[in-house]
């Protein structure tokens, strides 16, 4: 829920709406607001599941300190959604466990491949 009118802060400035994707769903957000704020505005407060026991987690500190709100954003895991601004077309996913980089699922193998191709180490 948005705080549209406020006794002290007045009316919300006319927002620049953008669309982003959350777990396959298209949602509206105000451009530049943190991902976490956009999700909370839609009543979504479960952002991830813990690696060992799969417990739900959401925001705690909302200022980028506690890391409780991390999600996978545009394929990159462990992004602090309370400080990461929403951009049009962004893909936000609930993070299950530690998350994974899709392109670098096995960074060790990737490095070995580079070596075999005669990379910087010749």
């Amino acid at each position, binding site marked *: 829920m948005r705080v549209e009118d406020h*006794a002290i802060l007045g009316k919300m400035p006319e927002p620049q709406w953008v669309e982003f994707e959350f777990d396959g769903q298209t949602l509206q957000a105000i451009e530049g607001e943190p991902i976490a*704020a956009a999700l909370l505005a839609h009543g979504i*407060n479960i952002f991830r599941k813990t690696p060992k026991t799969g417990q*739900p987690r959401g925001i705690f500190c909302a200022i980028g300190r506690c890391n409780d709100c991390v999600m996978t954003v545009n394929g990159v895991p462990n992004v602090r959604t309370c400080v990461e601004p929403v951009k049009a077309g962004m893909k936000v996913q609930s993070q299950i466990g530690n998350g994974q980089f899709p392109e670098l699922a096995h960074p060790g193998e990737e490095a070995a491949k580079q070596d075999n191709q005669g990379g910087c180490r010749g």
Partner: protein
Amino acid sequence: MINTEIAIVGGGPAGLAAAIEAASAGAQVTVIDENSRPGGQLFKQIHKFFGSKAHLAGVRGFEIGNRMLRQIQDLRVNVCLDSVVYALADGNTLAVVKQGQTVEVRAEKMIVATGASENVINFPGWTLPGVIGAGAAQTMINVHRVLPGKRVLMIGSGNVGLIVSYQLMQAGADVVALVEALPKINGYGVHAAKIRRAGVPILVSHTVREVQGKENVAGAVVVRLDERFRHVPGSEQFFAVDTVCMAVGLSPLSELCRLLGCQFTYLPEMGGFVPLHDANMETSVPGLYVAGDLTGVEEASTAMEEGRLAGVSAAVALGYLDSAQAEVRKEEIRIRLENLRSGPFGEGRNTAKQVIIQRYQGICSQAGKEA
């Protein structure tokens, strides 16, 4: 490589005030802040500040923030945003990740004003989505204009708990109660009165026994405490809420000062471990100054005064103010600080700050003896 005369880490009230003083004196100043906008937590403070006219009493926090940003701009202070200090490259060079790129910032003097972060208390269910810091709720409603929940239980009746409860109500949430483990309300009467006038109970000698819910918060069980803080059996009350806020104190963010080699002392009344400093805010590392909540958790108004003191001191050390002029300026600031630290709520903090300076002098005379 960025070369600057004074590097200030942290662009909250203390860091900005330090920057304004030092730049006004003529020094070249660079502020480094990890956030995408400066101001720290000042922009979520929508209540009027206390103190005297010199402390901008009666002006709301975010308005003070806007004034400071205008001054920063007028004084051409270099502000590096999205910039995280992660190491000391050598004695006077900070290693920084600035907008994803590594840069070094070489400075003759440094002022660290990294602030504080919220504490937590643990009970069954404390990790459920919907259990959040009171500061988090304040950020969401006042900065991002989003309500984190509709029905809220607040833990803690210090000023943060009282002010954020009222601000949640201003934003349209239903605050069902505040719980306080101590047998008395812990914040200012003027803030508590607003809560009580709104008909919201403040339950002293009470705490949360558990927060219930499967995937997120469905309710909280509150229990009365006896004089030894033990749960009183049979006193359980259930509150159907979707949000539980914790306002249970803050701890100084002292990691960077540790990294930079400052000596510390432990003062529970100031939030825990704080760096030792002298009456000019200079730490045990020569040329390194500190200010604000990092040096003991207080308020934005005291943080700004400490920032000014550190800013003047660093400028003097660089030769920008003549010492007589500077002493007058510093004395004015110290008097304002003393005023802010008076009365039943301030005296304890005043004493604790004196202890920090005394312990600093203690290590200096110890070092003198050894040398």
